[in-house]
């Protein structure tokens, strides 16, 4: 059976909507950030529902108010934040798998819990591949974000219609956890005992200064750490600045940094953090390597 390339037209969007996949991990050698889905647990889940390979590109939506129209039949899956989903104006009960007809329109409304919605499509979105990834990033891909409107290709697929025997239900409770499991970072040993125990027991609030580059926490932690030579960092590296700010690096963070690296988040903790909104509480809990 032959497939043809069809177009999904984003006719409205809030800030911060982008195409993401597994990112370009091996291009840090040129100073290029990793990129990729902030909450990989949710993006993997939508790809699994669609029988997609795990590198299929999905839409990452971080604000309500997205509208998208499809020019051809396909199947989509929505997970991540729990949000209101409308298909041609009618509320979709379980958005785990949504059969799409040509000219169908989907809208993502209000977010009930969580901060990022993932919309996957059969075979993945086919935006431009750059250095092995379709993940949007300024000056790497043609667009850094979709703004107001945009277009992205996908393979049409009529045959998935009618194969809805068992529809899984997305359970969002996992990201309501406040504990972020962390490994101790390479510079942890430079901290004094008091600071160490404070970092592992205190509650911290997510500050409004939170985006794909990183999440800053509101509370500061006084420390006497020296300025260090610039060394590698990764998504999930937690930095403690000389001013006492705690920064948890995201997928679009730079690949090296000079601030002491006190923790490294587990993959699950990174996904949990990606679903936290400013004002919510997190705590660090130590994992033993």
């Amino acid at each position, binding site marked *: 059976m032959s497939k043809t390339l069809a177009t999904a037209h984003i006719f409205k969007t809030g800030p911060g909507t982008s195409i993401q996949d597994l990112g370009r991990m091996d291009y840090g050698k040129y100073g290029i950030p990793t990129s990729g889905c902030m909450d990989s647990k949710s993006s993997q889940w939508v790809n699994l529902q669609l029988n997609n390979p795990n590198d299929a590109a999905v839409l990452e939506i971080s604000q309500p108010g997205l509208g998208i129209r499809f020019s051809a039949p396909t199947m989509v899956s929505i997970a991540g934040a729990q949000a209101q989903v409308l298909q041609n104006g009618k509320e979709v009960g379980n958005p785990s798998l949504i059969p799409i007809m040509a000219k169908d329109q989907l809208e993502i409304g209000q977010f009930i819990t969580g901060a990022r919605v993932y919309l996957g499509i059969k075979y993945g979105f086919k935006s431009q591949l750059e250095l092995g990834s379709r993940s949007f990033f300024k000056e790497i891909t043609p667009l850094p974000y979709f703004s107001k409107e945009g277009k992205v290709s996908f393979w049409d697929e009529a045959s998935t219609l009618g194969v809805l025997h068992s529809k899984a239900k997305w359970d969002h409770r996992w990201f309501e956890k406040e504990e972020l499991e962390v490994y101790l970072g390479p510079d942890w040993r430079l901290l004094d005992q008091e600071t160490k125990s404070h970092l592992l027991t205190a509650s911290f609030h997510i500050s409004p200064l939170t985006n794909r580059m990183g999440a800053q926490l509101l509370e500061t932690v006084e420390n006497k750490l020296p300025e260090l030579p610039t060394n590698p960092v990764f998504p999930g590296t937690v930095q403690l600045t000389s001013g006492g700010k705690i920064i948890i690096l995201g997928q679009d963070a730079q690949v090296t940094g000079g601030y002491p690296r006190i923790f*490294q988040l587990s993959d699950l903790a990174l996904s949990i953090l990606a679903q936290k909104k400013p004002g919510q509480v997190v705590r660090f809990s130590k994992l033993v390597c």
Partner: protein
Amino acid sequence: MEITPWLGELQWEHSPSDELLSQQLGVIDWLEEHEKEHTDTVRQGFTSIAILWKEQGFQTRFKNHYKTIKFPRVQLSDRIWQIPVCYEPEYGKDLGSLAVAKRLSLNSLIKLHAENRYRIHFFGFLPGFMYLNGLPELLHTPRKPFPDRTVDPGSVAIGGAQTGIYPRESPGGWHTIGRSPVIFFNIEKDPPVWAKAGESLEFVPIDGEEMNKLLKQPPSPYLK
């Protein structure tokens, strides 16, 4: 040392130097040759190398054998890139305040910066940003307490013990002392950068008139 079951780091206690860089590049070459299929990526910093392993077992095996591995030492390249830089106040807006703070004349500050040769250690911060070693101690300057909102692409700046070139427009906390018309990162090219870790770089002062010409037709960097 192991950080997570998949992420490990080799660390050195010394300060950044040519000697350390040649050891680091040797380890990176060795990993590229022997462990390429077992790693997702290898990232280099001034005093460490981070290795992200595909599986926990690969890291364990490496850790157990690490002490017996004879890593090669890489002879650092003798290639020297020459980068035109216009050090006029129009492009180096912090040149004046830096000269005052250092009690240097503009000319001697420029001379100090441009007479030196810098070693390229690795790329980081922004796509195409080179971490350079070799800034004369007299020019070491704490970063700005409040970063500038935007710095022009090609801006040459000083921050802490470092000097560097912003490859693209970006917010910046370093003191801008000039600007280069060269393009430092081009996604259309493979690789998107023209220099390699271990090579060297020199800044060649140009005047405003030449800068205007070159900004319209960005030149390629040239080898000395």
